[in-house]
Each structure stands twice: as structure tokens, then as C-alpha cells.
């Protein structure tokens, strides 16, 4: 039992160590710019289809603002925005097939 605990502790330590390393790795400004650009394109698509989520646009605006000062946060925001736009589009495609069933007949 004790051994198991020890092993698991080591594993956890190892994992967190790895994660820490990744987090500490410097984020290049080109990565941030690319993430923001990709989020923007995806958002534009969702916006044109009129299915964009409420917060997506402001996430991108925030990411742009933070790109120089806090690249880590900017990257996270851009990724979040891209995820939201992607999900919105996927949802829209899904609901496109089903909404007619809800119309009272």
C-alpha cells in the first residue's frame, strides 16, 4: 500500500513537472498572432451564419489587447474564441438537419 502511494506520488510529481516545464516555455509572438488570426476567421464565419456566441468577439478583442503584454493569456483567449466559433458552426450544422421537426403540424 505504502509503495503504491509512493509510486503514485512520484508519477504525479513527474507529470506536474512536465506540465510546469511546458507552461514556462516562452510563447512566440507569431504563435499568438496566428492563433488570433485563426480565431478571427472562424468567428467571421460563425458571425456570417448568424450563429456566433455572445462572448466570442470580445474574447478576440481582449486577446489582441493582451498579445504584447501577456502572450500566454492572449493565446488562451484566442484558443477559447476559436473553440467557441468552431462549436457554434458545428452546432449550427447539426441543428440545420433537425429544426423542422419542432414546427407544430
Amino acid at each position: 500500500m505504502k509503495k503504491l502511494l509512493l509510486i503514485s506520488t512520484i508519477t504525479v510529481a513527474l507529470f506536474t513537472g512536465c506540465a510546469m516545464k511546458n507552461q514556462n516555455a516562452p510563447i512566440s509572438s507569431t504563435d499568438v498572432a496566428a492563433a488570433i488570426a485563426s480565431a478571427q476567421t472562424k468567428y467571421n464565419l460563425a458571425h456570417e451564419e448568424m450563429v456566433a456566441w455572445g462572448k466570442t468577439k470580445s474574447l478576440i478583442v481582449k486577446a489582441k489587447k493582451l498579445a504584447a503584454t501577456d502572450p500566454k493569456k492572449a493565446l488562451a483567449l484566442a484558443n477559447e474564441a476559436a473553440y467557441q466559433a468552431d462549436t457554434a458552426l458545428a452546432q449550427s450544422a447539426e441543428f440545420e438537419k433537425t429544426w423542422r421537426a419542432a414546427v407544430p403540424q
Partner: protein
Amino acid sequence: MLKKLMKITLISMIGGSILFAGSFNAQAEKDRKAFVKYFEKKFENPVKNQAEYFPYVTKAELQNKYISPISFQGFQDGPLSWYKPSKEQFAEINEFAPYEIPLDDGIELFNKPFANGKSYSNCFPDQSIKQNFPYYDTKRDDIVTIGMAVNECRVKNGEKPLKYGKGDLAKVVAYIAFKSRGQKINITIPSENAAKAYEAGKKLFYKQRGYLAISCNECHVQSAGKRIRAEALSPALGGTTHMPVYRVKWGGLGTLQRRLAGCVKDTGSEKPKMQSKPLKELAYFLTYMSNGMKLNGPDTRK
């Protein structure tokens, strides 16, 4: 001979277009009838139909707090048409309705001359017109809302257009709505493009959206007559009769589009802009669904 042929073609063309005019709204009329039937059946006897429509509402509440049966006209009061506690509270509030102050402002604005000496009454000699809005203008190939009509009147007379959705515009619209009280909503679908706009509005109404992935339909058709916590969900039927509406939450008047935009936002979607294409289409569809209902705006809501 040629003349005669032309005449025949012309006549047949006109005849054809009349024939088409009848058929442009065929689908919409079918939808509308099913829509009305759904609501009438739902509220015919909530206690008896509990299993089908209100499985999570207690019998006591159905018996004591629900108004039933509701006639077709009865749906014109939104959530107040079925939920007694709300109806009582607003009956009390409407003893001296909060909308009377902005309505008085609206009367004043309506009669105040523009810089060129004319006034709104030159554009709207008959103010009892709200039942026809929003209408589809086949020449412009666009939906014309009452707010647009007001602003076009201003621009024509050299005035700056007003901000849509609230404020002075809503006040002027409130006056027109007040003068149109008792008129029956009469929305037509005059062309193929109008039918397309109707279909687009219908899709906006029934298709889930936003991060909550809910549709207008889920709350205001399927769940109309239930509550979200303390909030009584209004039936979509008759949802446009009492606009513009004074909402206590806003502390002022707002137009149909302002209300709809707020609702779309609540699904977790981007808030659509006033007079944007989707909002107008949604308003067009929703108002068509209430065809034949009497107007009773402006009114007060939470």
C-alpha cells in the same frame, strides 16, 4: 392581332400573379393554423392535459394559478394571459400604467412640427396602421418595420433619424400603437421573396442557437405555460400585440426588436443589431403567427 396577343399575355400575367399571390402564403397559413391550434389545445384544460403538457407542474398550481381556457384573443397578453399571479400584479401596476408618461411624450413628439413646419401627421395622416407592420415592400424587396417608417418620415422632412429600439422612437411608435388599439394584425406575404423572408424568420425561431443551444420555440412554444423559476414563460402566439412595451427592467419603453434582441442574447448568442436582416425576419414571422389578433399596445411587463 399583335395587340390582342399582348393583351392576352398581359391579362394572363396579371391573373398569374394574383394566383401566385394566393399561394405565397400557403405554407405560412398552414404553419399559423397549426401554431394557433397547438396553443389553444395546450391551454384548453391544463389539469386534464397535465401529462401531455405540464408534467412537472403540481396539480394545485394548475388549478389555482392557471387561467383556462384561453380564447384566441386571450393570448394577446403574453405571460399574463395564463399566469394569474402575474396578471394580478400587473393589473395593479396598470391602474396608473408606467407607460403613460412615455406615451404622453410620444403624443407631444408626434404633434411637434419638424424644422420645415411639417410633422409626423403629414406622413401618417391615419395613425391606426400598426396592424400592417412589419410589411413586405415588394418594390424595395425588403421588410419595412414601423420604426423604419418613422425614421423615413423624419429623413424625408430633413430631420436626423432616431436611434432604434428605445427612447424617442419607441415613444412615437407607442403613440401609433395606442391609436391602433383594437385593430387586427394583418400581415401579408405578397411575393416569393417575402415568403423566403418568412421562412428565414421561421428558421430563426425554431433553430437552436447560442452556447445554451436553445431556440425561441423551446421556451415560447413547447414550454410556454411553464415557469423558469419565478418567471412565467410567455406564449409566442400574441407575443407582438402589445409592443412597444414598458419593461420595469428597462425603466422605459422598448420596441419589438429590442425585446427580440434581448431574447436572442439570452440564448448565449451575439446580440443582433436593431433593424438587421435576421431581426426583421424574426419579427415578420412572429407577427404573421399572430395574424387576426387585436393590438393592445403599449403595455407594461416586468
